[in-house]
């Protein structure tokens, strides 16, 4: 076999040619510059390119994994801490002995209000924040705010808990919106890197064909949601390894509980005021909080160090340069798009169902019948079910995209209907497997719902210029739903179930209608994304005297794009491509990858 020559001359193992070359080139100041910096003769450009893009693709996968893990850890820590603290604070003895007349229930309710109400304002600032900081940095910042919330739980006072809860509430929508945006963007990048050849042929200005990134998007969203749903299980670890040792069993906690399930009213009426058999010592609590804090730190570092930027710096500059007023307005302008309008019920339902699983079902059915000590296992069942079945989102690779979504909705429909007629007896453990089974099934539905919606949004809105708006709207509606659940937490279970059911049916119907409209070839109106107005100095100082551009071209481009975008071709709606889109100067200038972070 012939030995393939190494791509680069290896130090110390230089072959005869290399040596010769070395000797042949005159050294010193007299050496011709070309020869010094020139390529090696056996430089295989194609192979280099392939390797380069493979590295890039691996980088993208690494980005997705790191972002998913980081966010999972953060959310798990946050949920676990919140759950633990709420249980601890619920206990009258603990509260009185540790906090006395501080008014902890009041602080807790204010904290919950901060977490649940603040996101309502998120529609106003989320796009601005995301564009200002950039997707990755927004994620990092939001993860940091979650970590700050964890940190304030060391020292629970009004002036620590409430401000941090408000800050957390502000960070919720930006975090998840930027996260969805990030994952979608990564799938697009992955497509770019795996189809670099076609792109080269088409030219850099040309956009990839519609829906081309969809398979990658499906895979990435499945990965992300498998991780994300694990966070509910992670959140139970403090409960399992710490808090469960201190809890009374169900015979004490549920002694006054009369009815469960569909007959119950509010959240756990008659639940005993004391749930702790023994009080945890401050030292142990500090240890637990420190572990959680360390995990939150780790998550921050992961997001900071391992997640690459979602856009090239130049792209980000472009995204920011459309004018802050426009950025502020654009989420509202997207309401013109009938696809989004049709999806709003689904967004709301998506918020409802998670919270119903975690509070309505877990507390009203599970804890009410099986005791607080089994809450952790119930939520773990939900979490594992959801995490495992997030992979089912991959069905979209073979089936029509509506199938997973509708399947999830159908599953939830069946479950909700059966929950209507189920009133488990308090303090009875015989049928506990049913609870775990229902929780896991609900998780399956949740996973289908979440992956389906996120991929759908990614497929419907491919523009990187508007993805953040879309995801902001999605998560804002979810936040609104969560707020509504928070408001209605004292309703009877039947009312909750009815609301859930109505929303679900409305959501599914509305979604199917939208699909039908699209198939009929109805074209949505999308707001125009304005042209970037650069005021930044830097690379762009040459732009002013860009002599290549004729006046006519500029005029024409502007004229074309002045109106709302009209459909160009195809039944699947319009894309802002083609002559309307003015190629960015940096694309001309660089023609390739900028100094991009990995």
């Amino acid at each position, binding site marked *: 076999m012939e030995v393939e020559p190494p791509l680069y001359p290896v130090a110390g193992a230089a072959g005869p040619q290399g040596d010769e070359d070395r000797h042949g080139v005159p050294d010193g100041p007299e050496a011709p510059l070309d020869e010094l910096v020139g390529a090696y003769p056996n430089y295989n450009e194609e192979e280099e390119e392939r390797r380069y893009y493979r590295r890039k693709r691996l980088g993208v996968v690494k980005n997705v994994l790191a972002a998913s893990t980081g966010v999972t850890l953060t959310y798990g820590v946050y949920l676990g801490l919140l759950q633990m603290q709420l249980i601890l604070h619920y206990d009258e003895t603990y509260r009185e002995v540790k906090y006395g*007349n501080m008014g902890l229930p009041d602080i807790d309710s204010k904290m919950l209000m901060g977490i649940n109400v603040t996101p309502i304002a998120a529609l106003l600032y989320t796009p601005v924040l995301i564009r200002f900081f950039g997707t990755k940095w927004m994620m990092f910042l939001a993860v940091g705010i979650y970590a700050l919330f964890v940190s304030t739980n060391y020292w629970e006072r009004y002036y620590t808990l409430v401000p941090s809860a408000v800050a957390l509430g502000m960070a919720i929508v930006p975090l998840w919106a930027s996260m969805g945006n990030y994952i979608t963007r990564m799938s697009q990048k992955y497509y770019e890197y795996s189809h670099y050849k076609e792109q080269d042929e088409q030219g850099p200005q040309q956009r990839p064909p519609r829906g081309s990134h969809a398979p990658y998007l499906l895979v990435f969203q499945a990965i992300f949601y498998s991780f994300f749903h694990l966070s509910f299980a992670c959140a139970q670890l403090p409960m399992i390894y710490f808090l469960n040792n201190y809890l009374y069993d169900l015979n004490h906690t549920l002694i006054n509980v009369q009815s469960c399930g569909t007959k119950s009213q509010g959240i756990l009426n008659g639940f005993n005021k004391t749930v702790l058999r023994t009080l945890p010592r401050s030292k142990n609590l500090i240890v637990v909080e420190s572990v959680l804090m360390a995990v939150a730190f780790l998550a921050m570092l992961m997001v900071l160090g391992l997640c690459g930027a979602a856009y090239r710096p130049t792209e980000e500059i472009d995204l920011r340069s459309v004018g802050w007023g426009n950025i502020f307005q654009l989420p509202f302008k997207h309401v013109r798009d009938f696809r989004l309008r049709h999806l709003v019920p689904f967004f709301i339902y998506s918020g409802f169902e998670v919270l119903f699983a975690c509070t309505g079902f877990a507390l009203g059915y599970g804890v009410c019948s099986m005791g607080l000590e089994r809450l952790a296992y119930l939520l773990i069942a939900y979490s594992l079910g959801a995490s495992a079945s997030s992979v089912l989102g991959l069905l979209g690779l073979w089936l029509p995209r509506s199938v997973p979504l509708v399947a999830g909705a159908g599953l939830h429909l069946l479950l909700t209907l059966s929950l209507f007629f189920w009133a488990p007896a308090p303090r009875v453990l015989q049928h506990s497997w049913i609870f775990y089974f229902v929780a896991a099934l609900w998780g399956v539905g949740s996973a289908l719902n979440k992956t389906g919606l996120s991929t759908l949004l990614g497929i419907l809105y491919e523009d990187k210029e508007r993805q953040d708006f879309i995801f902001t709207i999605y998560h804002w509606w979810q936040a609104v739903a969560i707020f509504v659940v928070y408001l209605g937490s004292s309703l009877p279970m039947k009312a909750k179930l009815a609301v859930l059911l109505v929303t679900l049916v409305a959501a599914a119907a509305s979604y199917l209608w939208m699909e039908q409209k699209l198939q009929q070839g109805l074209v949505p109106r999308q707001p125009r994304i304005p042209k970037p107005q650069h005021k930044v100095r830097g690379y762009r100082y040459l732009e002013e005297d860009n002599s290549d551009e004729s006046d006519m071209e500029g005029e024409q481009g502007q004229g074309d794009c002045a109106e709302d975008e009209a459909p160009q071709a195809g039944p699947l709606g319009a894309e802002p491509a083609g002559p309307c889109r003015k190629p960015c100067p940096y694309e001309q200038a660089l023609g390739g990858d900028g100094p991009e972070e990995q």
Partner: protein
Amino acid sequence: WTIPDCIIADSLLFPNLSYYIPFCTSAPGLHLLASCSNVKNLNQTLKRVPRNTEVLCLQGMVPTLPAKAFIRFHSLQLLRLQLRTTSVTSRTFQGLDQLQYLFFDHHAPCCLSLFLSPNCFESLRSLSSLSFQGYCLTYSQSIYLPTSLRHLTLRNSCLTKFQDLQRLFPDLLLSTSSTPNIKPGAPFLETLDLSYNLQLKQAGVRDLYGLTLHSLILDGTPLKALDLTDSGLLHLHFLSLVGTGIEKVPASLTGYSELRALDLGKNQIQNILENGEIPGYKALEFLSLHDNHLQTLPTRFLHTLPQLQKLNLSMNKLGPILELPEGLFSTNLKVLDLSYNQLCDVPHGALSLLSQLQELWLSGNNISSLSNESLQGLRQLRTLDLSWNQIKVLKPGWLSHLPALTTLNLLGTYLEYILGIQLQGPKMLRHLQLGSYPILDIYPPWPPTLLSLEIQAESCIQFMIHSGQPFLFLENLTLETSILLLKPDNITIHFPSLRRLTLRGYSFIFSTSQLQRFFPQQLPLLEHFFIWCENSYAVDLYLFGMPRLRVLELGYLNFFYESSTMKLEMLLKEVPQLQVLALSHLNLRNLSVSSFKSLQDLKLLLFNSERALEMNSNLQEFIPQMPQYVYFSDVTFTCQCEASWLESWATRAPNTFVYGLEKSICIANASDYSKTLLFSFLATNCPHGTEFWGFLTSFILLLLLIILPLISCPKWSWLHHLWTLFHTCWWKLCGHRLRGQFNYDVFISYCEEDQAWVLEELVPVLEKAPPEGEGLRLCLPARDFGIGNDRMESMIASMGKSRATLCVLTGQALASPWCNLELRLATYHLVARPGTTHLLLLFLEPLDRQRLHSYHRLSRWLQKEDYFDLSQGKVEWNSFCEQLKRRLSKAGQERD
């Protein structure tokens, strides 16, 4: 929780706690009791008292009771106020619907003036007993009394005449002029207590008209005689004239004939109407003449009392020999009390006429022996009290004439032994109390149906038992001695139905195996166990086989004795139903959670007189399961921070009332007499800011972790500017000498052709030390690049390490590849690191713009920035040097 100066108790546990609640009494059927002393601010104190309190006693200094003071306490039934109150508003007692007993007490010398608003009792719909003690109601009038009122007390007040009552409570009495009909809505008073009204001298005619009292108590008043009919009282049953200084039994007064009970104790009656008029006490059933000066029995008087059932003649001087003439007492007499009358002997048959007598009290006399003849004829006698007499010997069969006797008290005798035969006679002897001074030997057989047995002997009690089970029905056993012996050695006694066991002793009666021999097996029904052993030795006490034990009191058991193997947790392991645990003088030293782990039902825990008690910090976890009431009295703690949980527990735990910790002191070691309060020690010496520091540290770390990457991210130029600004300020603050990362001031790029000019003209000007030159450190490629280094690398590195780059441009320079490269690099840096790079251009000869056009960045640079044109002598050399220096120093500063 704890309330300063207050004590909360459940009345069920009252017997164990009465010592701590000196001025508060409860009433039967009431449970939760709160007693507060030193009350200054009533509302503040009452805020912390539990809402469902039924008994509330308040002591302190509250001159005016505010309106609605007790509105929270809907279930309050007894209220005792010792608040030196001087005024009560009309709405003070609003909301107390259930209140039954209301007491205003003032114990200082009489009397405190109290103003009552006329309708202040209007809302007390269930009030049945109202009492004023030590208060003058002079300024109040027309007070409305609830209709449910039954008992009214005005003790130690300043009433001068009964008509004051008319003024105070117009509802109560009918005015002298009105008809004798009972007013609608007026209370039906049963008892009126006006005792110790020292100025109540005169009883006017029809003063009490309209009252339908059952009892009238006039103890300690100067009223020696009260004409009941004249005063308007019709159906009085009980009249008490204790301590009024009466010398003769009131005789000629009307209305006494209906009296059923008359108490004339503590008077100076010497003999009753031996010669005078015989009063008509036809209906009298109870007569008390205790503590008078009677020397002989008032024979004639007693003859006239056909209904008499109880007669109390104690503490008179009827001795030394009791003589009861025939027919002296009515045949109904059931109770006769002759105690403390210095009687020496009861003659034979003296009591034989009292065939109905059920109780005979002879304690505190000098009786030395009683024979069966003395007690002849008392066939109904159930109770015989012979305690504290001089009895030295008991004749066999002395009880043979008392077949119905159930209770016999023989405490305080001088007996040395008691034979079972001596107690034979009564068939149903149930309650037996035996006491002797030095030693008591007890021989069988025992009365078979004994229910309670109390034996006291100072030094030794010795039981002689033949057969195993003499106490099958015994429920209550009290033994008080130093040494307890049981003979013969191989026998054990069984107490299968014992419920209450009290053991008091002074040395080691229980330390040896005696106790185990005495109570070897299970005491299945034992509920109350009291053991008090003043003993400096260790005690091996084990509580086993007492599954129903509810109350356990331990005193003076030395737990911390070196050789002692007994631990509290061992002791309490097998008493699962324990509810009350009182520990005093136990020398416990250490208290940990293991002691209480098995006690699920513990309600009351009482520590008394413990020294240097350490509360283990694992008790902290146990807080939710702590007993409902925990009392510390006279307990000193060890000063250590492990107990820092005590304060929050004591003051705030919702399910536990803690008493006595706030005044507890702690000692650091045995020789510490500083009397530090435990709580103040904990507050000053024990840091509790771990959480805060955890928060602060993590918060700052997080902020840094968030902010630093944001700052160092190159995208935000304004952040970057801020950062550089901060950096400069920092360096300026830290001193200007630090050059940082720059090794050179100026990197000079030139081609070989210009080298001569550079070395001769330029370098000296810039490099020489001031004042001749500028003192700048120059980097010349030909001179300063390291030998053997790659020229490219050195070039890049040196340019990076220089504050500014000076390019000497000539036609040759532009042709030279190295200069070309340096120029490109410099212009590239202009773009790549804007703001930090400084490029200076020096034209030595005029150059065509076109030639520079290939450096398009440069051409732009030249449009904006100025450059030095030295060609054709346009510029003076000196001024050029000046300019160059200025620019260089400016560049240097900016880069700093």
